[in-house]
């Protein structure tokens, strides 16, 4: 398990919608260079945490710091430029554009400093290569298969040259072999230094790649630590009892 310095720190983060407390005084951190698995049953608050970090929603209270700087309250595009990239749970490619054009968009709107440092064209080619999409790069995004569309999500995310990549149930809907391919790509990215937060329902996928695991339940942190230990803890099993899932939605 990594003991590297914290890259992303959530302190006392709470979010309520009307009367519903989606996240309650959550303290958690993501360490530099690690693969952190974030799991929890439906309604645990995973997606809310995701949206709070990526800027789509604002926390009711608490602070979110990236590399020491506060990012709570920033717009999604500002959060992206600070270095957090995300994928979406449902298909989010831009239709009527090719795979390449989808990735180009992300690369073209990087911080000007990043653009000066590395040409858009190179970043796009690199992102496509890493996600094994070079062969289908010029096909319309809506026509490639599901596995390729998932990889497009990743390619688009890494084309923003992020410090931290958060994936939201990225293996949902994939068969075991496609899941393995995707995980292999993600692990490869992590080996090159990308910090990864892996929000997932599929516990098997999570256990196979995560170096550390955090379990959320009812908006609070339930357990945290080594994946296998956490997955076997009675509290965690109790929380999942009754909601069987097979890894695929």
């Amino acid at each position, binding site marked *: 398990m990594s003991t590297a310095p914290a890259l992303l720190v959530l302190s006392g983060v709470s979010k309520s919608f009307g009367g519903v407390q989606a996240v309650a005084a959550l303290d958690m951190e993501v360490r530099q260079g690690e693969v952190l698995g974030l799991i929890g049953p439906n309604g645990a608050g995973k997606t809310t945490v995701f949206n709070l970090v990526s800027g789509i929603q604002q926390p009711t209270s608490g602070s979110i710091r990236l590399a020491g700087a506060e990012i709570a309250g920033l717009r999604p595009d500002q959060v992206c430029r600070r270095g957090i990239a995300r994928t*979406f749970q449902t298909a989010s490619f831009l239709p009527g*554009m090719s795979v390449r054009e989808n990735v180009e968009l992300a690369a073209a*709107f990087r911080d000007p400093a990043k653009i000066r440092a590395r040409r858009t064209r190179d970043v796009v080619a690199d992102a496509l290569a890493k996600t094994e999409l070079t062969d289908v790069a010029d096909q*319309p995004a809506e026509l490639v298969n599901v596995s390729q569309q998932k990889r497009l999500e990743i390619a688009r995310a890494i084309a923003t040259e992020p410090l931290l990549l958060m994936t939201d149930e990225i293996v949902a809907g994939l068969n075991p072999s496609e899941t393995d391919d995707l995980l292999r790509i993600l692990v490869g990215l992590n080996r090159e230094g990308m910090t990864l937060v892996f929000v997932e329902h599929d516990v098997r996928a999570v256990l196979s790649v995560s170096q550390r695991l955090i379990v959320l339940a009812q908006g609070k942190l339930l357990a945290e630590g080594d994946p296998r230990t956490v997955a076997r803890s009675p509290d965690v099993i109790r929380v999942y009892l009754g909601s069987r899932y097979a890894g695929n939605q």
Partner: protein
Amino acid sequence: MRLFDRPPGLSGQFAWLLAAGVGLALLPLALDPYWTRFAVFVFINIGLASAWNVIGGFAGYPSFGHSVFFGLGAYTGAILTVRYGLPFWTTLPLAGLAAGIFSLLFMPLFKQRGFYFALSTLAAALAVEAVVRSWTWVRGYKTSDHGWNLPNDMSVIFFYYLGLALLLACLASILLLIASRVGMALRAIHRDETVAASVGVDCARYKTIAFAFSAVWPGVFGAMYGPFLVYISAETVFDMKITLNMIVYSVFGGVGTFLGPIVGGVLLSAIDQIAWAHFLDYHSMIYGVVIVLIITFSPGGVLSWVRKPSGGLRS
């Protein structure tokens, strides 16, 4: 396998534009004054529709109050000419600038989408029109006036070339916009703003830029319209039908494409003219019927008959 044709590069597009411009420049030699005058209206209409298309078609934010910028341009031009004696050449850019700056007031409306945006812009435009109608300093030279009389010692031919020049400049600037990062951002915003924002696109900024751009040109054309018609009033330059035409020309030709407003502008102006010449009393009805039929039977517009969605100059 390439499924899309690469659209002609920017220089290719400019070449086409130039060729069309040269061709049109020679046209007055063959036309009598009536048709020359008609052509000026067509140029203005195409310019307006193309400008609307940037925010309504490319960005996907249908503005239903856009005639407000045309009206503002016309009134700004009138005020600058009659009250301050500014020459024609300065009133045009100043009117455009005024319209562009005024459009920034619409920024809060961009928090909404679709119908809400459409109707909010409509309400805002009607509010502005109401203010203009009641603010005596703006609405006419004397406090009892309800319009502006403008000096006009320029010929129809002059307005033809002016209109053509402005239209070419307008279209060229649109081509540049589409090819730029702004165009890229608008395409993304149109399809999915959440995704666009998640990859670093500051949506509010680009929507503002697009809207201001789409307001400047109607402002300029408005300032040209005044002297051309010699008299302007709130009824004529704030008319809802101006907005409707902007939208319909774009939709008819193919909303969201570069050629759409041009094709729509030419064809619908011709239909309008024929209806007016032959069925004066029923002219607006016939024109309206044509619009309704077009939209009912082909929401994709003329260009969708001619070309399957395959790139080209489509956004």
